């Protein structure tokens, strides 16, 4: 089990590095898709199957397709000169290291201190994180999707409404920005064309 997690994690991290470093934008979009797939793999290993599938459907299916559309639409020249990242390495690596170590050390040390048990055996590191008894699986068999469904539409309905407003704003905004129907284009108005009557179209000239 840990092997799969390690494989997905390694692939995910390396392809997200490649997203930034690839000089051809189409390659970086493909690496982005690879990152999404690997993350959904990690989620499957953790038992969140609904989220893994939603990641695949929404992230890979829609967002990565949109990125591909835009990359294809704007004919972006391929980066010839691979400007050296060595300039950034000292500063970037330094900040990255500080940020990464600080958060990880802070997290590792006192991850869930509430359990006094954990402090009696401080020597071996594995005991620090108590293995939980997963009550969810032992009692009623509620899959992830049902658990989410029960709660979103009743308890947290306010977030659900906010999500619909956000989608509405995104729709209005995208159309307002990109749609320009120039009046010169003659459009087919099917209903008017069908509803045309002889009497109204032909008038006696005399």
């Amino acid at each position: 089990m840990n092997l799969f997690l390690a494989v997905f994690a390694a692939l995910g991290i390396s392809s997200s590095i490649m997203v930034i470093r690839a000089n051809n934008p189409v390659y970086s979009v493909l690496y982005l898709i690879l990152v999404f797939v690997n993350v959904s793999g990690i989620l499957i290993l953790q038992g969140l199957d609904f989220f893994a599938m939603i990641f695949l459907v929404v992230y890979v299916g829609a967002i990565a397709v949109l990125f591909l559309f835009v990359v294809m639409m704007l004919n972006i020249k391929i980066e010839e000169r691979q400007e050296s990242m060595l300039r950034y390495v000292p500063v970037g690596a330094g900040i990255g290291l500080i940020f990464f170590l600080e958060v990880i050390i802070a997290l590792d040390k006192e991850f869930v201190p509430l359990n006094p048990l954990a402090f009696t055996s401080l020597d071996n590191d594995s005991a620090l994180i108590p293995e939980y008894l997963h009550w969810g699986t032992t009692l009623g068999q509620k899959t992830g999707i049902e658990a989410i469904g029960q709660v979103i539409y009743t308890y947290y309905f306010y977030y659900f409404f906010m999500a619909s407003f956000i989608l509405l704003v995104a729709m209005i905004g995208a159309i307002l920005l990109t749609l320009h129907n120039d009046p010169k284009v003659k459009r087919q108005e099917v209903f008017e064309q069908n509803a045309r009557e002889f009497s109204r179209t032909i008038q006696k000239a005399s």
Partner: protein
Amino acid sequence: MFYLFESDFLGLIPETFLLLGLSTLLGYGVWYEKGRESEMTSHQLWVGGLCLAFTFILLCESPLMNMILCFNTLIIDGMSAYLKALILLSTLCIFGLSFSYLQQERIKAFEYVILLLLATLSLMLMVSSYDFISLYLAIEFQSLGLYVLAALKRDNEYSTEAGLKYFVLGAFSSGFYLFGASLIYGLTGTTNFEDLGILFTGVGPTDLFTQGSVVVGLLFLSVAFLFKISAAPFHMWSPDVYEGAPTVITAFFSVAPKLALFGVLIRVFYLGFFDFLFSWQQIFFFCSLASMVFGSFGALAQVKIKRLLAFSSIGHVGYMLIGLATGSLQGLQGIFLYLLIYLVMTINAFSVVLSLRTHEGEPRFLLDLKNLNLKSPILALTFSLTLFSMAGIPPLAGFLSKFYLFFAALDASLYSLAILGVLSSVISCFYYISIIKLMYFHKAEEVQLKPLVGIDGQKGFLLGITFFGILFIFLYPSPFFLLSHAAALSIS
């Protein structure tokens, strides 16, 4: 379980009315838009303004004053009512300003009104949100609307570049906010401010919890909020966006989101993390110092009007952060008072800038202000008095708010903040007076003076009201004291 919340929708009457009005406006606009785009925009503006006025009345008459709604994701208390009223007033003023602007700039998109109403709705929900998820959704809902509004003029390079920059930095700061929120969720298991407040009661600097990454999460949260109100170390984006976006949208940027974000800052840091005062007080202490200095020094080198207003709003954010850094109720009351007077001053300043329009277009450089007193003496007088009140000259409104904030800072023994506040307002006096000198004493070379386009009714009305407010607030400030006091008390 479902019978608990009958009164939930009673508390949300203003928002539901705004939403229903909005959707009917959208349907009406898109159905009848075919032949008559420009009349449609002014129709929408009038009916949208009416819709906002009704929401304001509903807000003042709302039956419930203190309540937690929708399974403790929303809260209604004195502060949220006060800030919602201010947000509605500011959007009404923006609608007033945009009547003539949309015709002159030939923006024929009626969705401008719909997006502004959606942004107001999201600001009202943001002010009364009570946990990290509803706060995040409200922030995103508002900033999506504002990204589109910033890039509204599709054929103008500045506007699209402003929209792009605002988008990148807005998404970036939301990423920071989410990282902080997820860390705090990971370690405490709850995202509700009240539960966080209860969980952290009595947590001192030496407690086990506080060495861990709750403080890291708090750091990320405060960085994200400081990004959004463009406080000093993270303010680089705001002059460009303020200059690029259409002027009315810049007015909206500099007024409404700052109101809501200060309400959110108070809600998060005074309700949820008050026991971490020792850690986030230093952050706000440093940021208010830095933004006061940047606000005043940055404005000295400005050539364009809108960039100057952007830097002056950074300076005002710095003054308001003093109130946050004090950590006391007086500081809060100082913030609320300052927000009210900042709203009045900015609306006045922007309506003056908008009425400087000449026939061939909008003034962009400060030099266009030359010999304004010959063109229209009253406008020059109004603008100079507004600038005086922004600098904080005693008899005017700006002095009242700064005076109150510095006293709150002195009470909380933040002496350096108060002293530096006074110093930076002296420096800001310098560049305000340099504009007034430009208006009165510089003689423009060309002989004939370009006549200004006439000021239309709504803008004149707004100029009069805000000018009256700036001049005479000093005589009878007690209603505003009572209002801000009630708002501050609701946080205690």
